[in-house]
């Protein structure tokens, strides 16, 4: 009657490399639970919520409107005029930023808000931050569909082959987000003030990421420094490939309003983000998994 095939040994083992196989196997084994938990997270966001699916669009809309407001003010202050194309670029960047922010926000709290499950039932704890991120992805997918309709239907932004760059960019963003989520959820379990730190970083992070403005606006040196933020290449890459139809495999130099030439894009920037994301992802996962066995004690 029972599957005698599976014998399980629970030993206190050491060493980093036996981990990877174990870690991956566990998630695969529990993939149905991951689906159910994601379903749960999505459902509870929309049950009894007056806005229903509108929530998916609220945050990006807010960012775009705020951005437009700031740009209008800046344009007026410096005597120039606001370019209409700015709105489209901002929308393309607002959506992934709100995905990142939303996913991080929920992921950080995912372990502590499920403390009863963590202390009573065994299953790989990675499921908590993962399902929070996936639930956010569901929201963002709805937002992207609407964005696509607006951009390609109403704003006459053409579709070109460069749009395929979206695929590696989105993968990079996902990897980065999941990595950050794993690390932060784990940190918040041990240090309950991490969630407040995260809130502050999110609030001010938007100014250090090219969401309201483009990298070119910071000048040649500023642009390079800005690109150290792993999200910056992703957001700028999305803008350049979708709205400006630029092939990300080649660099782009633009003349800034001040007259200087700014290297707005270099393929190296994408490489940098990808490596950052991969290192963060694997590093966080290993740390998370290693500490997982002590969660129930500290939660």
């Amino acid at each position, binding site marked *: *009657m*029972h*599957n*005698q095939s*599976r*014998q*399980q*040994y*629970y*030993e*206190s*083992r*050491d060493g*980093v490399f036996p981990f990877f196989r174990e870690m991956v196997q566990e998630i695969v084994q529990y993939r*149905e*639970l991951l*689906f*159910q*938990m994601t*379903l*749960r997270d999505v*459902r*509870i966001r929309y*049950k*009894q919520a007056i806005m229903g699916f509108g929530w998916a669009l609220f945050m990006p809309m807010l960012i775009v409107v705020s951005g437009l407001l700031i740009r209008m003010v800046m344009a007026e202050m410096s005597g120039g005029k606001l370019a209409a194309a700015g709105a489209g670029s901002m929308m393309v960047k607002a959506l992934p930023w709100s995905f990142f922010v939303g996913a991080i926000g929920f992921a950080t709290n995912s372990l502590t808000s499920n403390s*009863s*499950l*963590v*202390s*009573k*039932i*065994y*299953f790989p704890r990675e499921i908590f931050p993962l399902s929070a991120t996936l639930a956010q992805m569901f929201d963002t997918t709805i937002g992207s569909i609407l964005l696509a309709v607006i951009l390609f239907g109403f704003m006459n932004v053409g579709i070109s082959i460069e749009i395929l760059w979206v695929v590696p960019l989105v993968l990079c963003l996902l990897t980065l987000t999941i990595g950050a989520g794993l690390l932060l959820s784990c*940190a918040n379990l*041990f*240090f309950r003030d*991490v969630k407040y730190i995260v809130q502050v970083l999110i609030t001010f992070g938007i100014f250090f990421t090219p969401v309201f403005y483009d990298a070119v606006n910071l000048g040649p040196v500023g642009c390079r420094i800005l690109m150290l933020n792993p999200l910056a290449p992703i957001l700028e890459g999305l803008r350049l490939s979708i709205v400006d139809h630029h092939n990300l495999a080649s660099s782009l130099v633009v003349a800034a309003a001040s007259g200087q030439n700014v290297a707005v894009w270099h393929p190296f920037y994408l490489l940098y983000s990808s490596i950052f994301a991969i290192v963060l992802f694997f590093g966080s996962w290993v*740390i998370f998994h*290693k*500490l997982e*066995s*002590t969660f*129930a*004690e500290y939660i």
Partner: protein
Amino acid sequence: MAEHAIEVSGIWKKFRRGQLHDSLRDFIPAIVRRLHKKNSEDADLSGNSFWALRDVSFHLGPGEALGIIGPNGAGKSTMLKVLARILKPNMGRIKVNGRLNALLEVAAGFHADLTGRENVYLNGSILGMKKREVDRKLDQIIEFSGVEPFIDTPVKRYSSGMQARLGFAVAANLDPDVLLVDEVLSVGDMQFQNRCVETMNEKLKNGAAIIFVSHNLPAVARLCPKTLLLHHGETAFLGSSQEGIERYMDLAYNSKIEHADAPTVFTHVSWTSSGSDFIRPGDSFEIKVGLRFLRQVSHPAFELMLERIKDDLCVFAANAQQLGVSPRIHEEGEEILLTFKGKINLLRGLYSFGFRVSLPSKDNETVIWHSIHQFYVHETASLDGIVDIECTASESQPEEGIIQNYA
């Protein structure tokens, strides 16, 4: 073939007292330390740690049930959590042949805003069931829980009993090879508890191994022939439940304290009964109490009391005079032997005989009872109650002359 369903060998688990790593400043070096730390710990501790479990081992075959009992703080919950993989032992190994499910909370993972049906799926997958399995068993689960009319209402509208029933209905339809159960089954009304026990018995018959952690000694004795007694994290006893329970009570009721100016001191206390392993209703007993008088005492009353432990109900109390021993004057240094004989016509439960010597002139409220013997009565022919009234039931055709309309 006799392969064990679960083998636990040499489990050690230690905890730290106090708080650690309050600030992020301590966090990063601590992580680096942990990643490099080897797992061969000595039996010594550094500073603030204590061993919650020391070298605990046991094994169970399919269809066997083991009870884990012990005083508070003995390590029972820790053992359960280690078995459920919620905590990782510092040393030791657990080998499970098949699937292990822990029932540490019946409505685990229930989310208040989701409906009963949605929660069944969620709960099922948390407990390890695939969606197909839940689909297949859904009707069974809903029917078992008795909340069918409310199955599509959010669970926050359910009473706590309904939630427990639904959660249990999901758990009852699991088919693990090893099942861990703790006090969770003590919530809920009698009908629910009986249902829990029935379900567990059924699973045992189907070949699952059950580990039952509880303070409810009668329930443990009823379900588990074998018991592990934990005390301060160590295996105090592993063997038959009857002996395990008696040893537990020795640990718990260790009162040989004499009152400061007691007139007597015990020289001998013994107990014999006609029951061989468990005591059953109708078994006879004999208690012998030997006393030596420390001073001259006039007409003391020797009192014997039998009480039920779970609620301190006095089942029987009498003094020796009522039972046949006439009071008289006792000289200093005199030794006597009192023998109490009788029959135990009690239903299942834990009982304790107490004895005391009280003086006629003194205020006897303050004289303490000495616990003579604790024992457990085992029977399964009753739902509840105290006294065995030797009741039987039979069915037959109605007799002539009985009133036809009973309404």
